[in-house]
């Protein structure tokens, strides 16, 4: 991998980690409810730099992020990795199989949906092992995920638009306007 790409991955992963860390400081009514702000970075990476960059950024984020928050080898880490991988893979599949059908907003909603789907499945297999609580919680999870996915998608769209327009360099420096 060329040095330029490595730097880009490192930079994007750092952004994602900051969002991940900030988010874990936010109070949440229930522990499993998260905004998924780091997905903004995954989405930007996917749309601007392709699948490999997005996947690496996400994997770095879940591993290093779980080291930060202290969930590393536990079930929280497995859930985070599974969700993150599902999100990248589903967004990449939608992005490359049907280019231009979905904007980053649609991709983000798809990513949120598969993130939640895989996390619920993993929670069922690894932790709860009873179907009723999963089925009871699933509609709420998907509903909230659709909204947070949309919001993250709108933020990504905004940032992608500005980077493409050359107003901001990918390293965050303001160029113009």
């Amino acid at each position: 991998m060329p040095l330029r790409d490595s730097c880009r991955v490192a930079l994007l992963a750092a952004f994602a980690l900051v969002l991940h860390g900030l988010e874990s400081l936010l109070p949440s009514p229930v522990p499993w409810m998260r905004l998924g702000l780091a997905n903004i970075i995954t989405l930007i990476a996917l749309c601007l730099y392709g699948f490999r960059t997005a996947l690496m950024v996400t994997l770095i984020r879940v591993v290093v992020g779980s080291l930060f928050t202290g969930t590393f080898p536990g079930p929280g880490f497995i859930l985070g990795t599974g969700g993150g991988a599902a999100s990248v893979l589903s967004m990449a599949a939608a992005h490359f199989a049907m280019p231009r059908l979905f904007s980053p907003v649609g991709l983000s909603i798809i990513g949120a949906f598969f993130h939640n789907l895989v996390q619920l499945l993993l929670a069922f297999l690894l932790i709860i092992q009873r179907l009723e609580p999963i089925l009871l919680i699933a509609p709420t999870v998907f509903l909230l995920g659709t909204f947070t996915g949309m919001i993250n998608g709108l933020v990504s769209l905004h940032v992608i638009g500005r980077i493409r327009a050359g107003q901001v360099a990918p390293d965050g420096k303001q160029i113009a306007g």
Partner: protein
Amino acid sequence: MGDSGRDIFKSTTLADKILFFVLVLCAASAVFLVPESIGKRDTVTVSFEGRPLYVLSLKKDAVVTVTGALGRTVVEVKDGAVRIVESECYDRRCVRAGWVRKGSIICLPNHIFVTVGEGGSEEVDAVTG
């Protein structure tokens, strides 16, 4: 902020909007429908004059005896179904109702309600006779 929020919304696609509304609609209706169809179905409530005396699980076999207006009523839960084994009432209709997996068995003379799922007694406005 260079570009306005309106530009952002313009660059979303029709597929985005359809996806969003379909997901919100499905999830929102599931929020209401799923608990009704699965969450409460497992419980068996045995109540006397609207007051719950026993809340049992359909999955756990059990036999309970409750005392109603006329006498005792024996309720049995087995293999996910519930029945009234015997009742000290005058017509034994409750016993003839046999095994029930959903809905209710009501022993009207003895004022005993056996309901699968919750809120059974709320479905009845009044008891007469």
